[in-house]
């Protein structure tokens, strides 16, 4: 099913090659300009401890070869992945239930949209009360941050299953279970991926704020500690890693939407 999508892309690629290379050059040039402006502005106008590109490059090897940095990165990213996995499974179950069962929808809709709209930072004092100032508190924050965006999107997806599909499954006497596995879940996948994209971003924020608030080992706390001792350049390496993780999530989920669900993206863009 994805073959026509690839063929189309390849065709477009050939025709556009010349503009693509010059666009790449423009991007690189813009990046250099941004770094230069940053460097010059900080040199002229900011106190010496403020992070600037030349210093960040100088401290970069030291930071990425240090044990504590990778321990912090590992702790944060492990919590993000674990939390996302929990939110993914639980969110899909609740989302399908809300999307397909009217009673569940009526009872839960209000609470789900309320908790989805709530700024997740607000629950930190509550989480630290329940879980103490521990990594369990961070995990709970990540799950809370990610869960509702998955529920909301999966519910939309389950609601949007074309009724014809359900009817066909019914007329072939498919059981409710086959209908769930073979009809409802597959057609909710694009929504699920969209929810996961949103959830991944929120999960990263959740992990970092939890580390700020509870002083748990991790990239957020690394940044807090380094900036407090005026090591802004070192702290910035951690920011770059977090940004990299954010971009990677975004990119991976977008690519998988484009690769496995090419019709979805084309539909979204209106051809």
């Amino acid at each position, binding site marked *: 099913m994805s073959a026509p999508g690839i063929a189309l892309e390849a065709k477009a690629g050939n025709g556009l090659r010349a503009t693509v290379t010059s666009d790449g050059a423009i991007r690189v040039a813009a990046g250099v300009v941004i770094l230069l402006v940053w460097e010059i502005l900080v040199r002229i106008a900011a106190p010496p401890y403020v992070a600037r590109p030349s210093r960040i490059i100088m401290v970069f090897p030291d930071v990425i070869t240090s044990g504590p940095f990778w321990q912090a990165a590992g702790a944060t990213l492990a919590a993000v992945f674990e939390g996302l996995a929990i939110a993914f499974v639980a969110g899909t179950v609740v989302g399908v239930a809300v999307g397909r069962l009217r009673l569940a929808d009526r009872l839960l809709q209000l609470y789900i949209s309320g908790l989805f*709209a709530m700024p997740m930072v*607000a629950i930190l004092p509550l989480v630290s009360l329940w879980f103490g100032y521990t990594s369990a508190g961070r995990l709970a924050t990540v799950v809370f941050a990610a869960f509702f965006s998955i529920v909301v999107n999966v519910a939309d997806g389950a609601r949007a299953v074309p009724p014809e599909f359900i009817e066909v499954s019914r007329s072939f006497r498919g059981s409710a279970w086959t209908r769930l596995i073979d009809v409802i879940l597959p057609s909710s996948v694009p929504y699920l991926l969209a929810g996961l994209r949103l959830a991944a971003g929120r999960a990263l924020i959740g992990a970092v704020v939890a580390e700020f608030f509870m002083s748990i080992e991790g990239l*957020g706390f690394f940044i807090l500690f380094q900036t407090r001792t005026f090591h802004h350049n070192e702290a910035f390496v951690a*920011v770059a890693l977090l*940004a990299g993780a954010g971009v990677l999530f975004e990119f991976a989920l977008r690519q998988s939407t484009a690769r496995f669900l090419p019709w979805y993206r084309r539909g979204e863009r209106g*051809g």
Partner: protein
Amino acid sequence: MRSRETLLIRWSTYAAALTIGAALWQLAAAHTNPAFLSSFTTTAARVVEYTMSGVLTDALASSLALFFTGFFFAIVFGVGIGLLLARVRLLRVALESYIMVLYATPMVALIPFILSMMGFGFVPKAVVVFLFAIFPILYNTVEGARSIKPELIEVARSFRSSEWAIWRDVLVPYTLPYALTGIRQGVGRGLVGMVAAEFFLSASGIGQLIMKSGQDFDIPGLYGAIIVITILGVVLISLGRALENRFAAWRGLER
């Protein structure tokens, strides 16, 4: 099916859901240590008390002033720069990938830098809200800019449209629906920024109310303040969504 439901039925299901929720909460609290969960009735009583004494009004006024200051500048710069990128292709090619990176970066990570460089007055806190909210606005506006077919501007040009007319008739109508999607997303992120700023820079507003209740182990106060911020979130995000839907039809023109 849903469209046939009358408003009355819809609101009564909401009321039923709320009643059942409150009853379950009350029941759960009766079997839980009050150090972790206060009952629905004591929490509701605390919210009423906060409202009567004016504590809540002051906190909300302070938080909203912070939110709207940061958000106002986020809209001005986000939409402004986005429209500029819509007009100048070179700038868009140069900057859009960096905007994408900043859109995906968790902005909370910058709070310690802002604290250390700017201290903890009103301005740095508004800067936090601004940073949280601007990138979804900018990112979506640029997305809208990309949706404008170059032919449209060419046609406008060949009919000798003035620069002003191109902006008014092509750029703004085509990017506005996308910008509003960004503004809706920005509301949610800006609210997170608002509470984060009130927590981590200097305590004020509704964030302070939450923090202080937590530190004092004032459990009903803590739950009450969290309910208030949830309602605030729902109201602001519904406003954003209503605005987005109002102009969403414009998107249909291009398809």
